[in-house]
């Protein structure tokens, strides 16, 4: 008996079969959802979810201490025009969308052994993505600034370019 043969194909019934399986699944999901207590809400309460950033989150106070000690390099990961928004003085602008180009411009200033603090807005996904790209390139990422620039400002951190802010 051969391992395989080519024979005339029967009429395809994949669409009907797929719809049937999707329907069976829907019935099972509805049944399990109705019977289960406590019931999982259909609309997620996003405050219950935390992003697994893969990097430690650094509090603004801790970040200020590291900044004042001058031991860490700060990286601004926001997708902004550097001249239009306040930023932490001395920070390098390296964005996820143009990571390679931005990094190439500062290769003489940032070395893989330099500990990095990445910051953005209060949404940590963007600095998290940039931190991941740094790590892929062999850089040492100390952490991501919790709360971003706004939290830094509230913690009394110094900002450059404040006068051009709206």
């Amino acid at each position, binding site marked *: *008996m*051969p*391992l*395989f*043969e*080519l*024979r*005339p*194909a*029967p009429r*395809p*019934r*994949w*669409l*009907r*079969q*797929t*719809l*049937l*399986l*999707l329907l*069976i*699944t*829907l019935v*099972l*999901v509805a049944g*399990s*959802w109705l019977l289960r207590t406590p019931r*999982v*809400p*259909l*609309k*997620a309460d*996003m405050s*219950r*979810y*935390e*992003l*697994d950033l*893969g*990097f430690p989150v650094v509090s603004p106070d801790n970040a200020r201490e590291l900044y004042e000690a001058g031991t860490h390099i700060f990286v601004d990961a926001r997708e902004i025009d550097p001249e239009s928004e306040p930023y932490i003085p001395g920070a390098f602008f390296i964005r*996820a969308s143009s990571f390679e180009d931005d990094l190439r411009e500062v290769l003489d200033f940032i070395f893989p052994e330099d500990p990095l603090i990445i910051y953005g807005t209060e949404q940590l*996904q963007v600095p*998290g*993505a940039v*931190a*991941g*790209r*740094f*790590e*892929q390139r062999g850089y040492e990422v100390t952490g991501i600034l919790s709360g971003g620039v706004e939290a830094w400002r509230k913690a009394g951190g110094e900002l450059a370019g404040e006068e051009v802010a709206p």
Partner: protein
Amino acid sequence: MTRQLHLHPLLDLAVRLAVGVTFLIAAPHKIWDVEAFAQATYNYRILPDLFLHPVALYLPWLELVAGLAIVFNWQRRGAALLCAGMTLVFIGGISAALFRGLDISCGCFSADGHGVGLDLLLRDIVLLAGCLILLFSESLPWRRSGGSQA
């Protein structure tokens, strides 16, 4: 008339078991702990918040139903198409996570399991190949050894 691939029944069974059991193993922990699976899905950062729980509720059951259908060779084409579709979605999610440098757990077989990486991508590509073989093939009928040939 178009012709179609027909596999030796043992080879067909092996492919069905490999694909079907993979989906069957993946489903229970997600069904049991929906919110842990929703967290794992959230970590990929590709799904709008509105769809997070509906997907976390539906996808594991779809894995279970499609996996069972594949193993028992019931509604084979439909099940293989669904498994191929799900695997393509997984490949897309893992690729996006790798591209963005996310260091996250894949959420495939347990909430805190294997991290996303190229090995995982390769595994899913092999799984996709299995799904496509099942989608575009049929099993040859079993014959007794030494039986009469037509």
